[in-house]
């Protein structure tokens, strides 16, 4: 990937996302959710999307708003159903959206494999459960494993705390969650940050996502949403 581009608006950041794309969306609940990018994606209009994210939307904002706008064909996630997932629940029960449930660690590790050039890996999670259905099982050193394949994204939309002008990223606390992994697994990684700083400002020992994984960065005004009933 060539050097990251710092763009002026969330709309510029999501320009060109095609219908039918697979989009990795960061966040664990609301923490780390790239709200401005998702709102821009709704305005941009891409449809028939496959979304890979830990949850399937919370409240009526972010991913839930994208779902409500009818742009999503399928969701791969670990935890679609929770107290505030009413948008997804409705679509799912009406048969308007596909769901593939992936254990949370496999979701992360399969994206890591995509970013790391691993063709597939044997994972002990879900052996002997309904989620093992259709997966190749293999015993290694007396333990059973399932063969898991990479999950690649055409785009990743993630939220981070700071970027330098080269695209190096740091995160804040548990808002880090899936961001660094998704950044490695997508062809084009788009990041919203609280602030863009000069190269040399971030401690090179503390950079979490090196610039090579970042394609577009936009600084947004306010990242935290307060959502009644959503978490």
């Amino acid at each position: 990937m060539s050097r990251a581009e710092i763009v002026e608006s969330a709309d510029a950041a999501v320009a060109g996302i095609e219908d039918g794309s697979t989009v990795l969306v960061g966040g664990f609940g609301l923490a780390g959710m790239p709200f401005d990018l998702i709102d821009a994606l709704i305005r941009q209009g891409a449809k028939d999307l496959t979304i890979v994210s830990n949850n399937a939307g919370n409240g009526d904002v972010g991913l839930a708003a994208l779902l409500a706008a009818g742009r999503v064909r399928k969701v791969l996630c670990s935890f679609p159903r929770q107290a505030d997932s009413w948008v997804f629940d409705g679509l799912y029960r009406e048969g308007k959206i596909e769901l593939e449930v992936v254990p949370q660690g496999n979701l992360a590790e399969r994206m890591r494999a995509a970013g790391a050039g691993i063709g597939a890996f044997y994972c002990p999670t879900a052996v002997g459960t309904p989620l093992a259905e259709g997966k190749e099982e293999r015993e290694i050193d007396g333990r059973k494993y399932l063969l898991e394949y990479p999950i690649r994204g055409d785009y990743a939309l993630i939220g981070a705390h700071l970027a330098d002008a080269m695209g190096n990223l740091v995160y804040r606390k548990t808002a880090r969650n899936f961001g660094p992994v998704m950044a490695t697994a997508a062809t084009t990684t788009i990041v919203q940050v609280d602030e863009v700083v000069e190269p040399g400002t971030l401690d090179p020992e503390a950079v979490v996502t090196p610039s090579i994984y970042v394609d577009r960065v936009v600084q947004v005004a306010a990242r935290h949403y307060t959502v009644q009933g959503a978490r």
Partner: protein
Amino acid sequence: MTTTSTATSSATSSGQAYAGAPRSAEHRLSMDELAAVIARDIPAGSFVNLGIGQPTKIADHLPADSGVVLHTENGMLNMGPKAEGDAVDPDLTNAGKVPVTELPGAAYFHHADSFAMMRGGHLDVCVLGAYQVAFNGDLANWHTGRPDDIPAVGGAMDLAIGAKDVYVMMTLFTRSGEPKLVPQCAYPLTGVGCVSRVYTDCGVFDVGPDGVRIRETYGVSAHELAEGLGITLS
């Protein structure tokens, strides 16, 4: 107050002939008392993941000098108590998405690293809730299997197979009196043979390849409990 006894599962137990909950319900432990029992059993200095729901109560009962380090699978070690008031930070939550705090010596990491930590067997203890646990340690805690239910697994399957010891914390009987510690799980499994101990309001059990063994009972004799669960005291 507690009695200790030993039982092993009868290989031929029918699996359906349950006697219902013991009558002396007033002596069962509350979930808070049970949390204290589990906290007592967690070795000092352990790395521990407490599952969403009841198990989070255990943190309140760990002695300040226990040196127990809490892991939350959304990317943190040395998590502190629930955040209140001004301490609430939307960027700092536990796996249940509840705002929490950070203790000195904390570390943050991304999701792949966090689950590598679990899957790699580095956590000493994980305590989970459950719908059902089988005598052999099979766990069912993610899906009721009802056709209208939306499946959601989260990190349950990763946690189930990850920690060195997986404990379950639950009531021993459903509201309608059906045992949740059973010869074989009826609900879809979360993990196979992964639970080593089951803490309940009526007693504590070791489970695993050698079957079930009663460690302690609360307000009920081991004999009554064994009968209620359809297990044979050895």
